């Protein structure tokens, strides 16, 4: 017996989580709100990975587990496959989804863009929209981190949005060999530095 929930309910719930934590519980502390949301995602990912690995043969190594996350787990969770997967073969993986369903129905307030500088309007607008959607990315990052940790892979996960609607770039780095890097990454995953995090990840890969 498969029970179903409407997708709009899930999206509304996620939007409400971000709203409550950012303007309600931790009103002036976006860092704490982000960590809390990520921790919720961690537990959800932990439990979901139990359920989705149930009928599968055991994974022989880490790569199998990562393939599972990138293909089956992602499509169960977000209802579509990822569009691109890159790796540097040294523990960093970048998943790209060109139309991330959870944020597909989100738009940025155009008045925010209009109040930007005349000299650099496009960059300013992009920055503001990245900030606005940045908080919504912590929950999916937490889910992926929780699922990977339940399969035995400790990692750091970060996400970046470029050009709404929703081209999501999610990167995770296996924690063991790249401990210093993940420390840098964690410090840069704050509301103000989402772009820096993306640049850091891209610089490792390319």
């Amino acid at each position: 017996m498969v029970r179903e929930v409407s997708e709009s309910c899930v999206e509304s719930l996620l939007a409400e989580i971000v709203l409550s934590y950012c303007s309600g519980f931790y009103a002036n502390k976006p860092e704490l709100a982000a960590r809390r949301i990520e921790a919720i995602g961690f537990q959800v990912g932990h439990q979901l990975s139990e359920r989705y690995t149930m009928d599968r043969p055991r994974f022989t190594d880490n790569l199998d587990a990562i393939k599972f996350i990138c293909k089956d787990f992602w499509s169960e969770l977000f209802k579509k496959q990822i569009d691109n997967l890159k790796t540097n073969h040294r523990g960093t993986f970048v998943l790209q989804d060109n139309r991330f369903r959870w944020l597909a129905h989100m738009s940025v307030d155009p008045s925010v863009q209009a109040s930007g500088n005349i000299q650099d309007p496009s960059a300013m607008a992009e920055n503001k929209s990245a900030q606005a959607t940045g908080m919504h990315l912590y929950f999916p990052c937490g889910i992926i981190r929780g699922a990977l940790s339940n399969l035995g892979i400790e990692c750091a996960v970060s996400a970046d949005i470029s050009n709404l609607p929703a081209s999501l770039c999610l990167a995770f780095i296996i924690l063991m060999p790249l401990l210093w890097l993940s420390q840098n990454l964690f410090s840069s995953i704050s509301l103000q530095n989402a772009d820096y995090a993306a640049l850091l990840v891209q610089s490792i890969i390319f």
Partner: protein
Amino acid sequence: MIVCVAVVGHQNNPLYIQSFTKGDDSLLRISILNVEGCSYHSLKRHHIVHCSLDVVDERVNNPKKSGLIINETFLGLLNPTENYKVYGYLTNTKVKFILVTTDLEVRDVDARVFFGRFHTAYVDAVSNPFHIPGKKITSRKFAERVSTIVKSFGLSSGG
């Protein structure tokens, strides 16, 4: 007849142990002293489960020597010691299920079906948002489901 089932986490920490008999060993008397509130029987079962964990690790780490397909979840008969047979099952998330039974002839198929149902019950118990991962499973519903599964195991393999 199933004596005990156990769920062991990935750090070999016990998450759930349930016994299903009340002291069937004829060599022991009820007057054996209690150790820290546990009866001798439950300690013995803990001990059996603990020993079988070593066999699980060995099976997983040396697949060629044991002749097993590496990526099977059902590990089969672990060690037929004394009066007991111990079966093992390893999930993708490194959680181990141990089944201890006194049946002399247990079909492979029955054990697999048992573990399939047990896995489903376990996943449902762990999906409970009030369950803390890594701590013991305290859900009554899970205990009831496990009892049902154990009873149906006895019936199907009785023939």
